[in-house]
């Protein structure tokens, strides 16, 4: 096959795949596994409503002692295979971030436990979305309305919602400073 004809075949393939995309729809919907993740806001709502929930923190003992989501129990990743979750409760696992929690979810499911949910974003999501949620001063009405609901939840858990200028300045707010502020206010749980 000559170079020219090979290029034409590749070009035609790209054209067909591109044209197919027009009718194939949004690719994000097919691969997404939304039903296996739960947001920090949903977990906070469930906790506030006292729903049957078993929260499992798979981080190190030091990290757990420093800070954990209210009502969470500490089960290190290495001990998870021998752990028996409460069959009557919704089980939510979390680590420092989503991918650690996913490993925990797989271990729990291998032990024969029914569906296990993963706290989306791990403990950092709890800190950023519940303990220290922010909204831009220039946010739209709908965004402010959504933020007000989160802010109410945040205060319930001892958090401090903030209105910030322009872009999100989360990078400036260190996890340790958030933890310190949370400790000073003492948590509701």
């Amino acid at each position, binding site marked *: 096959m000559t170079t020219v004809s090979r290029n034409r075949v590749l070009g035609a393939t790209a054209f067909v795949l591109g044209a197919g995309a027009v009718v*194939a729809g949004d690719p994000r919907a097919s691969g997404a596994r939304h039903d296996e993740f739960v947001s920090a806001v949903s977990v906070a709502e469930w906790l506030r409503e006292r729903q049957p929930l078993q929260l499992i923190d798979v981080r190190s003992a030091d990290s757990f002692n420093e800070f954990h989501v209210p009502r969470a129990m500490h089960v290190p990743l290495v001990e998870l295979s021998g752990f028996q979750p409460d069959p009557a409760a919704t089980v939510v696992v979390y680590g420092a971030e989503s991918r650690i929690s996913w490993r925990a979810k797989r271990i729990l499911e291998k032990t024969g436990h029914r569906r296990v949910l993963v706290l989306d974003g791990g403990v950092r999501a709890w800190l950023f979305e519940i303990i220290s949620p922010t909204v831009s001063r220039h946010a739209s009405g709908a965004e402010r309305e959504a933020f007000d609901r989160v802010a109410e939840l945040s205060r319930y858990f001892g958090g401090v919602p903030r209105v910030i200028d322009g872009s999100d300045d989360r990078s400036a707010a260190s996890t340790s400073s958030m933890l310190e502020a949370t400790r000073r206010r003492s948590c509701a749980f």
Partner: protein
Amino acid sequence: MNTPLFEYGFLSHNAGLIAALVIGLGFGFFLERGGLGNATKLAGQFYLKDLTVLKVLFTAILTAMLGLYWLGRFGVVDLTRVYQLPTFVLPQLAGGLIFGVGFVMGGLCPGTSCVSMSSGRMDGLALVGGMLFGVLVFNEIFPVVSIFYNSTAIGEVTIPQLIGVPHGLAVFAIVIAALGSFVLAERLERSPR
């Protein structure tokens, strides 16, 4: 299937670093084989004599875009979990300008300068040295430029979100733009000077 593998915990932190090294080596190898370690060849695009860079990069964009689109569509890749670089309009425009000036002056971009250095070229070595010096200077002056650095943030936006068109239509438009640019590039390269 659970992909991205790293995001779903199938790759540990260390395995992720090893995977990045392997992919980086492969990327560098094929850039070099494509002739992109040669500053003269790269600079040729600015004089419309040699448009290899345009063709290579647009091919890479097409391959990645169509691959991710269809893998996402068939449920193999969870696109909501693929990291997207947040957009900061003005700082990234300024960065692009500095990048472009450096590219024209040196004939190499950061990736190709590493490729050039690895294949023993002294200009590649000089540019990698300059790049590291630039990184050092940027770190030192970061407190001064941090306000600008974080300004005009519009979040993790994609082209379809930004212009308000369906995902598939944006994919098709980029395919047409790429194919059109390939044809134009070939004509320009063949045209008499």
